[in-house]
């Protein structure tokens, strides 16, 4: 089993399997690539197609136990291969250069200098270039060899260790983390546990007991059109008192290890419906579809469609918003009984109208936000993996694993020499380097050391 796990061929097969599964799944539409409405329509109209999309597209495939098993084996194989390489290194405390796997290139030349001078030039070159030098002396032949670029091995080890950290981040996040959503209207106090909709069942039990309130919401637009700044203040009240934590896009609030990231921002006009002195409906309406309008049930069979115009204008029959700044806020309220429109009115804050004996008011408006509430302990492993992996890859990129051997043999007063280079990955570089070294030695100069 261990032998199988340390097989690099198996690692490649597993990697290819994961890659092919991911590629095939990425071509299938999913709940990210389809809008929520289209996703629901698909579920209603084509159950078979929906089943395929909801089981084989990427966000669903990655939760499939079979896919997870293959990924786990890939992680195990990566770990085993890396451990095996370190163990092998630990046994010999040095890296063996595998000549048989390398490309080689050699040149034979004659130098007018005596063997001792050539040897000293070669040794000078090797020590200047920080090669690991070894020597063999026979009566007629001196062999001096150097090797370098073995840091690539450690680069590769660091990279794979980084990968394993990233692999581990997944289960750590799923098992220890939390993910949910908090949608709240400005200045409304809510219980934290009840207000957050957890993405996993019963997950909200982990949340601390506190009251939550969102204050001082702001949305700023450049030239009234382009999103510029969004933010606010999160007020959490627990037994230790009030905690006021500012938040903005890219600057999440943090409380007891939970991160509150701003995800959505919108307008919430308050709609009040009163009849015979009784309040039938009184809510701040969190509008999520500013273009097409949002529908709310006022009473059985009666719906209101509401659109908020932050900077209202009217041109003939056309109405709309000049900008996204709240310079002239107006709320359009249309009331439907069944499919028939029975009321339509435009309300500035504080306006009211009478419809069939009922009083409709829009006293004011606020803003609402959705905050992603998460706790992801896996992020630390991702960061560690990132550091290890990128440092390892950089070292791997910069290193050039190679060996060079000089055979020196006397030829009368002159010296014959053969320079043979071995290189794992860069033959053209090696060829050039060997030729340069041979030429310099022939000319009686110490070759220039390369990194």
């Amino acid at each position: 089993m261990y032998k199988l796990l340390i097989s690099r061929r198996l690692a490649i097969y597993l990697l290819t399997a994961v890659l092919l599964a991911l590629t095939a799944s990425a071509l299938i539409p999913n709940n990210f690539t389809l809008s929520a409405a289209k996703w629901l329509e698909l579920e209603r109209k084509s159950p078979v197609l929906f089943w395929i999309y909801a089981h084989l597209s990427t966000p669903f495939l990655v939760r499939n136990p079979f896919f997870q098993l293959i990924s786990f084996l890939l992680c195990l194989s990566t770990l085993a291969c890396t451990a095996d390489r370190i163990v092998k290194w630990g046994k010999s405390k040095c890296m063996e250069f595998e000549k048989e796997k390398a490309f080689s290139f050699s040149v034979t030349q004659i130098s007018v200098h005596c063997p001792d001078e050539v040897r000293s030039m070669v040794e000078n070159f090797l020590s200047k270039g920080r090669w690991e030098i070894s020597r063999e002396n026979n009566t007629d032949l001196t062999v001096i060899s150097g090797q370098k670029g073995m840091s690539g091995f450690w680069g590769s080890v660091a990279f794979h260790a980084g990968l394993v950290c990233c692999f581990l981040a997944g289960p750590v996040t799923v098992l220890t983390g939390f993910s949910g959503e908090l949608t709240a209207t400005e200045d409304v106090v809510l219980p934290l546990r009840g207000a957050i909709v957890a993405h996993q069942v019963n997950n909200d039990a982990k949340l601390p007991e506190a009251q939550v309130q969102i204050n001082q919401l702001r949305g700023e637009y450049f030239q009234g059109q382009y999103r510029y700044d969004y933010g606010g203040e999160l007020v959490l009240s627990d037994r230790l008192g009030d905690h006021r934590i500012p938040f903005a896009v890219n600057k999440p609030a943090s409380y007891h290890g939970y991160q509150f990231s701003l995800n959505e921002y919108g307008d919430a006009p308050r709609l009040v419906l009163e009849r015979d002195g009784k309040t039938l409906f009184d809510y701040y309406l969190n509008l999520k579809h500013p273009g097409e309008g949002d529908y709310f049930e006022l009473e059985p069979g009666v719906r209101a469609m509401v659109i908020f115009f932050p900077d209202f204008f009217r041109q003939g029959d056309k109405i709309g918003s000049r900008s996204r700044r709240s310079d002239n806020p107006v709320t359009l309220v249309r009331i439907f009984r069944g499919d028939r429109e029975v009321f339509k009115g435009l309300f500035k804050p504080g306006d009211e109208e009478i419809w069939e004996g009922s009083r409709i008011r829009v006293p004011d408006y606020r803003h609402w936000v959705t905050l992603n509430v998460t706790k992801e302990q896996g992020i630390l492993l991702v960061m560690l993996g990132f550091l290890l992996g990128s440092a390892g890859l950089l070292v791997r990129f910069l290193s050039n694993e190679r060996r060079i051997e000089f055979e020196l043999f006397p030829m009368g007063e002159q010296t014959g020499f053969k320079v043979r280079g071995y290189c794992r990955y860069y033959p053209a570089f090696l060829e050039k380097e060997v030729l340069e070294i041979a030429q310099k030695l022939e000319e009686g100069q110490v070759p220039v050391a390369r990194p």
Partner: protein
Amino acid sequence: MAFWEEIFLWIAIIAYAVSFLLFLNGLIFKKERLQLFGFRLTEAAFGFHTAAIAVRWYVTGHMPAMYTYENSLAGTWIIILTYLVLRRFFPPARPFVVAVTPLVLLILGNGMLTGGELRPLEPAFRSNWIFVHVLFAWFSFGSYLTAFCAGAMYLLKEKSSKSFLIRLPELNLLDELSLRLILFGFFAQAVMIASGAIWAHGLWGRYWGWDPVETWSLISWLVYGTNLHLRVTLGWTGRKAAWMAVVSLFGIIFLYFGFGHGSSVHTIVF
């Protein structure tokens, strides 16, 4: 687009197009002077391209990294920079311009079609990670694209005996360049993905969400990871490696056009 940005960009585009034609001519008709002039023109075009970026950066007050136009403006600049650095260290890589400039013109054209409105940096982009994420994304794309050129040239040169193809760089040099470029691209893409994950954690509260752009970036990274394993572990070189360099680019193309592939949190960032 700012006035001077548009002027500089059009000069750069025309110069890239002319340098491509000069190079192609020089290569086919064995005219070294035309090739040299074409190369100088590429350098000049790069200068104007840099000026266009500088003007835009000055006017908008931020690095051009938002939406398609700015990404294509900065991305093509990095692709040309990758080529020029490569040419500096490996002079035989000079003819790569024949393959690089048409792709640069295509990407720029696609970006310009989407319009280059001047606007401030949106809140979601206001993070220090933008520099790391976007810069390394384009470095990886530039490296993979140049590796693709090396692979394509390898295949052309190996198959054909036509005289102008013989003047392309040596086969073993093309093979080696493609490996080095893929290794660098793989490193750059790793940094891009990891920095994106950390940025996403601060922005959306999660570091990975299987969004289409995230999925395709992982797929293309795994494609190049497999590519490197096949070369380094199984010793694939020559034609097989060249085919891998050519075919692997399609993963990246999916990633690039993934921005338009349905909805994604990368297109609706907040």
